[in-house]
């Protein structure tokens, strides 16, 4: 098989590096990005490796469509073992870093070991340099990027870095490139544990496309449809915040730490209020939609603060989740998280949890160093972000993630801590969208909505799907998960396919022209299934079972108090039975030998000793 991908393996301990080639068969099987990362991590990482130890690996991977100029093919993926959930972690970011990384001549990086002193990596047209970062340590992500730009004086350089949160191994820490975040699961803490402050990349390599004419025609045809597509136009104008009003009206907008599903402050926190504050639109590489907005706070103590976003999840995390209806405070919170290098979903979720603890008398004001952390107190909320980022006072406890914080606080707080496998839940209440309950419970990195979002259920896209029914949801979720595994692994933004922008046939066509061989949509979907199962095997090897495919007690026992889903809880056992059956997993959620064999994962299955006899 000819090689197609080239990876740079970097040993930070020894300060050595070497190039490794990935042959085409691996790309056909695992596509790239997330899928390739799952294969590498599964093969190379010893079970129970300490996520924050030198032995953990940190992968930065692109896919074969990245940098080709095809629309929405932009995302790089960080793959590692999560310090928050202990699962495999895939965390993706748009912007410009991914395409520029491919231009260096390397399609991805495998970072190993731990540097004795703080450093940053400089990769320029195939050349690799370990550079001192002691002067960068302590800087925010913005300061760090500015300083490296100043040092390197290369206008096209792109940088991925951590902020003070990653340096302190805050488990909510993310990796920032430009103002885009590989946000979830604590990849920033892994980077910090390796004393790696940043990676700067530059290059001019043209990425390979084996059938350039066909590729060009197809991608131009996709682009031509953009101005004619209503849903894409809407998305380009407003971005994800457009969904705030809709999700709230559907009664699945978690409010005050999931105590309710409709936020009374939605009139102040929505896309039209954001539009009044937008300075200009912002885009990722090669994107004809440009859904991002640079927004400036208009009033009060936050007046003048700008941020790229906030997007839907962040509006929720520092809005409804914290009972806050000051949109300007949300803008400030978003900017501060980006500067410190904190995941906004996990941070907002954690603060909402602490607010409920305080209101229930489980946390006293003196334990909060005088901070009046009531729901709706936005100045306390913003201050709390800072304390988490720098691990100050109670912030040090929340910096461990909400699951560990609840264990520490105790007093029954475990009953309303909103996470799955340690990853804080995002902005949809599955009591009113039952398929989302399966997605939260089974997502490989823990409580995540994004690896299998069902637009039909969550937003009411056609054709109709009853959000409150559990009937047939296993199959619907599986299909969404497999498709998302394809998109993630090829680095395709998930939003356009949800907006009539590009479908799996288009993607198969683009990939076929890049590789110079026919790939069908069915083969892509099978690859998605394969990737999902391999990630499941990774987690199984780490000891995760059906018991861990759990949801917070609140979602299982406390009926939704209001809105269209009033009276509903999540019928998780029935949903999981249906889902496992659809996936051909056994009743404990472990992939059967049959499905592993069908997907070409029999060897990986055997290595996990799933059935005790080594027979699968």
């Amino acid at each position, binding site marked *: 098989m000819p090689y197609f991908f080239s990876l740079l393996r970097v040993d930070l301990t020894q300060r050595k590096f070497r190039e490794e080639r990935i042959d085409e068969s691996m790309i056909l099987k695992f596509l790239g990005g997330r899928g390739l990362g799952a294969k590498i991590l599964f093969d190379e990482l010893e079970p129970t490796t300490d996520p924050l130890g030198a032995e953990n690996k940190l992968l930065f991977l692109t896919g074969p469509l990245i940098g080709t100029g095809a629309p929405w093919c932009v995302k790089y993926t960080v793959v590692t073992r999560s310090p928050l959930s202990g699962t495999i972690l895939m965390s993706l970011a748009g912007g410009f870093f991914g395409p520029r990384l491919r231009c260096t001549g390397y399609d991805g990086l495998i970072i190993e070991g731990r540097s004795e002193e703080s450093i940053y990596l400089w990769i320029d047209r195939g050349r690799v340099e370990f550079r001192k970062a002691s002067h960068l340590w302590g800087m925010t992500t913005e300061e760090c990027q500015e300083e490296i730009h100043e040092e390197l004086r290369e206008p096209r350089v792109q940088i991925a870095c951590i902020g003070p949160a990653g340096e302190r191994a805050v488990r909510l820490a993310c990796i920032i490139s430009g103002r885009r975040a590989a946000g979830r699961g604590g990849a920033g803490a892994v980077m910090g544990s390796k004393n790696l402050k940043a990676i700067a990349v530059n290059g001019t390599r043209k990425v390979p496309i084996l059938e350039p004419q066909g590729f060009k025609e197809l991608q131009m045809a996709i682009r031509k449809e953009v101005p004619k597509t209503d*849903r894409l136009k809407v998305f380009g104008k407003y971005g994800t915040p*457009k969904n705030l009003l809709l999700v709230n*009206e559907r009664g699945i907008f978690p409010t005050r730490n999931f105590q309710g599903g409709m936020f009374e402050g939605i*009139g102040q926190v929505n896309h*039209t209020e954001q539009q009044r504050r937008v300075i200009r639109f912002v885009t990722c590489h090669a994107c004809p939609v440009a859904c991002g907005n640079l927004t400036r706070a208009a009033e009060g103590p936050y007046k003048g603060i700008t941020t790229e976003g906030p997007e839907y999840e962040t509006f929720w995390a520092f809005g409804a989740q914290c009972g806050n209806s000051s949109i300007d405070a949300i803008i400030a919170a978003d900017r501060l998280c980006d500067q410190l290098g904190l995941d906004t979903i996990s941070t907002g979720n954690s603060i909402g949890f602490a607010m409920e603890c305080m209101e229930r008398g489980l946390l006293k004001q003196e334990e909060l160093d005088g901070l009046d952390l009531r729901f709706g107190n936005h100045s306390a909320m913003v201050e709390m972000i800072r304390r988490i980022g720098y691990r100050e006072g109670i912030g040090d406890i929340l910096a461990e993630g909400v699951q560990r914080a609840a264990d520490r606080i105790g007093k029954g707080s475990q009953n309303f801590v909103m996470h799955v496998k340690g990853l804080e839940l995002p902005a949809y209440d599955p009591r009113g969208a039952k398929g989302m309950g399966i997605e939260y419970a089974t997502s490989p990195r823990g409580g995540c909505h994004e690896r299998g979002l069902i637009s039909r259920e969550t937003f009411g896209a056609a054709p109709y799907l009853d959000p409150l029914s559990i009937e047939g949801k296993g199959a619907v979720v599986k299909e969404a998960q497999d498709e998302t595994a394809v998109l993630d692994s090829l680095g395709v933004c998930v*939003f356009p396919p949800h907006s009539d922008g590009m479908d799996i046939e288009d993607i198969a066509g683009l990939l076929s022209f890049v590789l110079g061989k026919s790939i069908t949509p069915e083969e892509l979907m099978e690859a998605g299934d394969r990737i999902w199962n391999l990630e499941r095997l990774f987690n199984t090897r780490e000891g995760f079972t059906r018991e861990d495919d759990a949801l917070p007690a609140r979602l299982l026992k406390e009926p939704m108090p209001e809105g*269209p889903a009033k009276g509903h809880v999540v019928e998780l056992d029935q949903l999981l039975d249906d889902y496992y059956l659809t996936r051909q997993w056994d009743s404990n959620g472990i992939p059967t030998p049959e499905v592993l064999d069908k997907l070409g994962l029999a060897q990986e299955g055997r290595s996990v000793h799933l059935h005790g006899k080594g027979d699968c």
Partner: protein
Amino acid sequence: MSTSMAKVTVKFHGLIMDKDVGRAEENEVTPGTTVRAVMELFVRRHLASLREESLSGDSGKLWETHVVMLNGIGLVPEKQLTTEVKEGDNISIFLPVSGG
């Protein structure tokens, strides 16, 4: 005749910038009026603003693209055509589904 008129509220969420968040309009309609007919009434009233936003195409046929809910429950187009409104009903109209 007037005693049998039904009051129906139409809420429109972010369809028309600066004018409409959470805005609700009451309509008095005769019994037997469908959800679609109430929406057509709404579109006739606001067509100029909707066109200005360029979000509903030139036709103003919101029901072809937008999300419509009756009392908090999503309605597919066929149901919009046939469901008759009654006193106190709330119809909500949202921008088309996109993104995630």
